[in-house]
């Protein structure tokens, strides 16, 4: 397994976006993915730390080995997401001079998503982005007629008249944006995996954990 090859001194940091935009199926998919990465890393004897990103960040403790600390991970990933997406990146290289591997699990639904990625790219070590999306939301399912949309993070309100054409345009806009994110990650040397919360994520996640995983499923 690529991520969990025996290394003498490797620290794996899993950054989980727990901002308000992650509410719903995305949050379920994100914490499932984060827990899977943390568990597999602990099984591989890496030192693992899970960091929950919300209005700031909160870790499950110092990076540690073994399965015994996994309960703390589950506690950290409990509860509902909330707050705004932070563009501040925790110090990923802290905790030793060994190899660093970090995994960001996020929807990246923030206007400054490129700044977030840029800051992560400047960090030492190997980086991966698990991009959690929800195609049902892209399709605007359930949105019809005159609506006032409220942004979960900023509270910004937007009046729209949702019809088939508007929803199709929204889907196209989201797909173009997600492709931009993927391209930006790959250009910056980051691994990228897109996880659709509207679908079971097990297979793509396991496939990514097991082998070369550059690109989208």
């Amino acid at each position, binding site marked *: 397994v690529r991520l969990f090859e025996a290394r003498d001194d490797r620290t794996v940091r899993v950054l989980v976006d727990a901002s308000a935009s992650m509410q719903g199926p995305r949050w379920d998919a994100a914490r499932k993915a984060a827990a899977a990465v943390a568990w597999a890393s602990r099984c591989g004897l890496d030192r693992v730390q899970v960091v929950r990103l919300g209005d700031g960040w909160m870790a499950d403790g110092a990076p540690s080995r073994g399965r015994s600390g996994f309960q703390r991970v589950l506690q950290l990933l409990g509860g509902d997401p909330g707050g705004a997406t932070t563009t501040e990146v925790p110090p990923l290289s802290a905790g030793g001079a060994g190899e660093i591997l970090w995994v960001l699990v996020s929807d990246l639904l923030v206007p400054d998503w490129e700044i977030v990625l840029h800051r992560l790219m400047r960090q030492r070590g190997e980086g991966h982005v698990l991009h959690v999306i929800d195609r049902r*939301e892209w399709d605007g399912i359930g949105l019809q007629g*005159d609506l006032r949309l409220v942004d979960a993070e900023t509270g910004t309100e937007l009046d*729209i008249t949702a019809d088939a054409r508007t929803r199709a345009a929204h889907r196209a*806009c989201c797909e173009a*944006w997600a492709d931009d994110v993927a391209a930006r990650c790959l250009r910056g040397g980051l691994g990228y995996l897109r996880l659709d919360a509207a679908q079971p994520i097990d297979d793509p996640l396991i496939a990514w954990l097991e082998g070369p995983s550059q690109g989208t499923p």
Partner: protein
Amino acid sequence: VTLANPLALWGLLLAAPIVALYVLRATRRRVRVATTMFWGRVLEQRRRARPWERFRQHASLWWQLLALLLLVLALADPALPSARGLGSSVVFLLDTSASMRARAPAPSRWEALQSRVEGHVRALGPFDEAAIVISSPAPRVLVPPTQDHERLISALRALSPSPTEGSLLPAAETAMALVAAHAGRVAFVLTDGSDPSTAEAMRAMKGAVLETLGQDAANVGITTLSVRRGGIAD
């Protein structure tokens, strides 16, 4: 464009409560979404591609305002003066000589003239003006140029032909003086045409339109009366 009832335009003020009611009434279902970022982009794209899109979502308001506008305009009774037929300023030169009393056509030439002129006056636009000049017993301006059409009609109804004969030519000079005083003003000469030479002269006048009434008929009446002193022979 002229308005017969310009006060009706005050009705446009009703747009304010219509807009207020629309704003107060408009309630949209609030939906919480992860981000409005992409919806904002979609709206912006559509507005750029089709600028009228921003108005489409208020279509019911625009229909209400359009209905109000049409209603107010209908009440204001707009009209194009030239479409009313006669023009913006008219002088009616009326032949008021005794021959207008003739009863051909029935009931009389004079009543036919009154009916014709009244029809013309009623066809005028609200801001069109008209004057009446009469020929007998002496040429004079009966009603000077005015937009008060009711006054014109009242004067016309109160008028009756003179018991004397008269020529239209002196009155025509008076009428044409009024025509000359206002650009675009025209004279309508209404006569029975009993004096062919006068009628011919009228036709030759620039700015004058001749309308003849009546038809030829044998005169029946006392045209000469001789009075002598003395008794009546048995």
